[in-house]
């Protein structure tokens, strides 16, 4: 008797909310995929199809070839990969300095990094536009790579200094005794141990660049230079929206972010949770 009541309770207060949570999270993604695989006529057909009865990939072909998603994808990839490379190098160096050295001004530097977390990103759109316009870098991927690096560096530096702090100092000292230079010990001893941390930082940075919208919108004014978010937004704003191609474009944009997230989820959750916890 008691047992069946507690089971009912468990269903009511645990499995039901859990199912609702799962549905709430997954449904918008499912609906987009569902729309992406429908023929143009079937999208607006009544009764609404909750599952594509005659699935097609024509939307993907149109999005990729005609609407420009091949270009947007390539632009996002260029900006993302370049930013990741720069961020990894710079934040490994500064993270190393923070976790391994005591030096004058360290506290101020840390404070400066923390302060950046409170800078409203939207505050940057006007001055950065003016700066990059004077440098002739509007619609140039460089302006985005530089901006994203500046925005991400403070957080990734803190993240990397945490990862580096977890590696015992003795290993480096042993390398130094064996006659390795600072850079050699960094490259040969630290780097392999740091790899998981580097991967997490890289994924975190890549997802940010892949998703960023407002700065990319402000710093790009040629369609051939649009990144995916700007391209999607542009498409949504058109008078006659091609919903099938829009949904297909979204699925294209979704795939890399979700795959990377799934791959590095554990590290990201630990890193993000740890960083916020302080």
């Amino acid at each position, binding site marked *: 008797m008691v047992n069946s009541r507690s089971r009912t309770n468990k269903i009511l207060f*645990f499995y039901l909310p*859990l199912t609702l*949570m799962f549905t709430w*999270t*997954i449904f*918008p*993604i499912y*609906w*987009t995929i569902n*729309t992406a695989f429908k023929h143009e006529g079937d999208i*607006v057909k009544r*009764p*609404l199809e909750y599952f594509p009865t005659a699935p097609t990939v024509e939307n993907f072909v149109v999005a990729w070839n005609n609407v420009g998603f091949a270009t947007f994808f390539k632009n996002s990839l260029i900006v993302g990969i370049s930013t990741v490379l720069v961020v990894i190098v*710079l934040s490994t*160096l*500064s993270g190393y*300095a*923070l976790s*391994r*050295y005591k030096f004058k001004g360290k506290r101020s530097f840390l404070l*400066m990094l923390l302060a950046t*977390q*409170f*800078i*409203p990103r*939207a*505050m940057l*759109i*006007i*001055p*950065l536009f*003016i700066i990059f316009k004077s440098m002739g870098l509007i619609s140039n991927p460089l302006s985005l790579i530089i901006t994203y690096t*500046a925005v991400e560096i403070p957080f990734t530096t803190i993240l990397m200094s945490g990862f580096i702090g977890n590696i015992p100092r003795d290993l480096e000292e042993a390398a130094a005794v064996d006659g390795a230079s*600072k850079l050699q010990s960094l490259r040969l001893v630290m780097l392999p141990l740091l790899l998981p941390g580097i991967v997490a930082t890289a994924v975190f940075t890549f997802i940010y660049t*892949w*998703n*960023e*919208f*407002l700065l990319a919108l402000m710093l790009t004014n040629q369609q051939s230079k649009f990144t*995916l*978010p700007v391209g*999607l*937004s542009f498409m*949504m704003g058109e008078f006659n929206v091609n*919903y099938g191609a829009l*949904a297909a474009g*979204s699925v294209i*944009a*979704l795939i890399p*972010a*979700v795959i990377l*997230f*799934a791959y590095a989820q554990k590290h990201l*959750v*630990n890193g*993000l*949770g740890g960083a*916020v*916890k*302080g």
Partner: protein
Amino acid sequence: MSSKQLSGDVKVKRKFKIDNWIPYLFILPSFLIIATFLFYPIGTVFYYSFQHYDISAPFYNKFAGFENFVKIFTADKLFFPSLMTSLKWVVSQVGLQLIFGLLFAVMLNQTFKLRGFVRAIAFIPWAISGVLASVMWSLMYNEHMGVFNDILMKLGIISEPQAFLASTSSAFIAVVIAELWRGIPFFAITLLASLQSIPEELYEASDIDGANKWESFIHITLPHLKNTIVLTTLLRTVWEFNNVDLIFNLTGGGPANSTTTLTMYIANLAVNGSDFGYGSALTVISFLLLFVFAMVYLKITRYERED
């Protein structure tokens, strides 16, 4: 230290010196890029806020004194309404994201089959961009093909398809719901990490003392989560105040400015390339508002950083 001692040990001193410079060399590139592309631009926002600065009519650019600020508080019909919308936006987002994030975290902290899989799914919206989320929710809100209209009509709640995003009575709520979808996982992730660091013994002890689940939640879980909650809500407030991705793409601030937050207002001015001086003045005001808020918030919540 006397100079005699120094000169006696020049070689050691010099080596010592090079080692001293290493940390500075290592942080130099990061420092430079942060200073040049974060702090310097912020500085120039303050400068431009005292200028008339129109990029399309540079001939008329000149020093404006406090004119921009005076105009904001006396002549701007959109400033106070957009500030109110920002307040509504931030309070509803942060409040609801925290409540549901906590609920998600507590559920995902239980042991059940397929927990790893369900966790991964539950966190996915965190990795999805604002623009992508906008597309997804606009497909569902759509008047002609939207699934919400279909469900609500089947349930008999509405008789005609609604354009949720085009009506002043529903647009704001619709955008809030869409942003919630994307925002809850952030709280769920950080709170789950914090939940996992609570020692199991605490619960066992309170169980022996005869406390029920709710009591141990109030007396053990919440106090333990306090610092995380204070910091995440603060970070999130700043973030949501500045976040326009969904508003920009779902409604563009409309209809009839019912979804125009202060940041959306600034973004519209900036994207349309109107007077950057005026936009900068609005930016300065939102910065000061956030700054004061952060100080007061940290003070009243007595946030303490654990070292």
